């Protein structure tokens, strides 16, 4: 291929997974570790070629547990790192994702979701792992997860994911699905100088045994390995200096709250939502990812029929846009939640609405076959009449 640098050709017609890989490269990713799995393998295919062109490293690990361990290790070595997999791989990674959270390690994890549980249906689009990033690893923590709906967003959101990971020293998820990963669409690549990149705040000089390298709600500087900073990093509960203390509840309380607040305090910067036609809407449709495409089409159709319907779409699903949904619930009478599962995010919408609006869950008739337009349109008409 002639266009070695993505910045040479401005647009391309490519697969979502490839767009994701190119987004990572645009964001400065220099390390990719992964294990083959459908429907995410194309990301590894692409990275196995591109990483070496970009002075980076690609490694196909022995399993997904090693993949996440590798990218965390690489991140402490000072490089931006990523792994990509599907549900079964994430299930294997969960313990070490918790380690990334508690050691405040920036990294990006892509889950191109497929049908589950277990081996499930590898090529069927399913939004079955929506809760997994937030609740899958044990303990109590906050994490960031973004939900793209197109190849363009696979590129754009992957850049954002790296930026948020760097800014908040936290693993960031891309929650795509099999169809978003596999569909081919036009992708407009920004030129290199159009991309704004965040870089992690680094500890510059060694500050002594009790240097503060963790648990700052405004993000502590990261002591990159090999710079004489004598980093003391552990997955055990620790204090600001990294020293473990696993017997004092006050230390645990401080660690859990600071880690969570580091994300929650910056919700305004982290959370992105997309609202369409909500100014006069009586009904809002809440949807994300692939489903959002069908919903937006339906809302356009409904509007052309004069129905007062709007769309609310969380781009950031974790942390959950609680306040935004609460605001929405005060504006509309009904919120219809459309998601390609049996209602994973629905309870969060209901809780955020807190009785302000009626919340209806509308799954697709056939999971994975997605919605026919009438399914959503009929529900809108039923609600409005």
């Amino acid at each position, binding site marked *: 291929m002639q266009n070695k640098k993505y910045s040479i050709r401005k647009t391309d017609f490519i697969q979502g997974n490839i767009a994701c890989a190119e987004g990572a490269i645009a964001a400065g990713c220099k390390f990719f570790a992964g294990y083959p799995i459908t429907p995410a393998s194309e990301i590894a295919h692409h990275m196995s070629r591109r990483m070496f062109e970009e002075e980076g490293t690609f*490694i196909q690990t022995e399993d997904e*547990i090693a993949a996440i*361990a*590798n990218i965390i290790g*690489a991140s402490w070595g000072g490089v931006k790192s990523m792994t990509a997999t599907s549900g079964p791989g994430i299930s294997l990674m969960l313990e070490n994702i918790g380690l990334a959270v508690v050691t405040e390690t920036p990294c990006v994890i892509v889950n191109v979701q497929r049908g589950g549980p277990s081996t499930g249906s590898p090529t069927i689009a399913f939004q079955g792992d929506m809760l997994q990033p937030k609740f899958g690893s044990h303990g109590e923590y906050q994490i960031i997860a973004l939900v793209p709906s197109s190849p363009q967003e696979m590129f754009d959101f992957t850049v954002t994911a790296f930026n948020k990971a760097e800014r908040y020293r936290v693993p960031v998820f891309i929650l795509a699905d099999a169809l978003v990963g596999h569909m081919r669409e036009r992708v407009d690549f920004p030129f290199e100088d159009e991309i704004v990149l965040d870089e992690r705040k680094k500890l510059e000089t060694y500050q002594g*045994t009790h240097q503060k390298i963790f648990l700052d709600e405004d993000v502590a500087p990261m002591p990159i390995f090999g710079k*004489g900073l*004598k980093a003391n*990093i*552990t997955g055990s509960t620790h204090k600001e200096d990294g020293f473990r203390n696993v017997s004092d509840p006050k230390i645990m309380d401080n660690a859990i709250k600071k880690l969570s607040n580091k994300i929650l305090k910056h919700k305004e910067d982290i959370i992105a939502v997309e609202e369409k036609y909500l100014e006069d809407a009586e009904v809002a449709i809440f949807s994300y990812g692939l489903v959002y495409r069908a919903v937006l089409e339906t809302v356009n159709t409904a509007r052309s029929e004069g129905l007062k319907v709007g769309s609310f779409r969380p781009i950031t699903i974790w942390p959950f846009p609680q306040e935004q949904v609460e605001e929405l619930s005060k504006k509309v009478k009904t919120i219809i939640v459309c998601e390609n599962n049996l209602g994973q995010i629905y309870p969060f919408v209901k809780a955020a609405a807190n009785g302000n609006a009626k919340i209806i869950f509308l799954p697709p008739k056939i999971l994975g076959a997605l919605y026919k337009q009438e399914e959503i349109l009929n529900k809108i008409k039923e609600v409005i009449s």
Partner: protein
Amino acid sequence: MKNTVEHPLKKYFRGEINYTTCSGCGNGIISQSILRAIDEIAIIFDQIAFVSGIGCSGWIPSPSFNTDVLHVTHGRSIAFATGLKLAAPQMKVIVCAGDGDTGAIGGNHFIHAARRNIDLTVVCVNNGIFGMTGGQVAPTTPYNSVTTTTPYGSIERPFDLSNLAIAAGATFVARWTTYHARSLKNSIKKAIEHKGFSFIEVISQCPVQYGKVIGMRNDPVSMLMHYKECAVNINKAKNMSADELKDKIIVGELVEKKNIPELTDEIKRLRREVSRK
């Protein structure tokens, strides 16, 4: 006037640390062997990173050693170390692992790191038991041992971790016991300087948990003397029959292969070739 002499290895410790291991544990001997090896090589300590997992062996570098230390999940230390080494190939990366880390939960990472010949030094503390969690059987526990999870005696055959490393392609493999502290130190020196995957198995006493299994509870001295009696150097063992070697511990430098391509070098080569295209 009191004449105080500073311990020659004190400079390598973070300070203000309460050492966490039980009295009589082999960790102290192994810590010293590692640090004495580093001291003799005269490598800058800041250029070395330690990675350890969960288990008593994890406490050898963490948090005591005053350099970069990454203390990770059980069994995964080699996988974390792989990522770190690939991202920072100029660093020396030393893994302190246990026999549970390497032989049980992390066996896969262990054999694949050996296969890749990535330049890591793995010091594996093999005490033949799960010590920290209360004396459960390990994949290294001898057949018919009574442990907290094998009350009728263990019915599985143990792993020989050094042989496993050799079979998987490790390019430097040595085994010693904590009785052989100086030889251990010398092999660690070689391992650190060796370009490629090096594996040092240290048969180490756990007087609290494994001591119970062999009737030497809280008696580290007897355990060390037992190692002395059982140890047979590889040079001597070569001429001994399997029967003669039964219940013996073969010690020494078992494998040293040079000029086998090392992973970070291979990556550098690949980058050069790709950039020429």
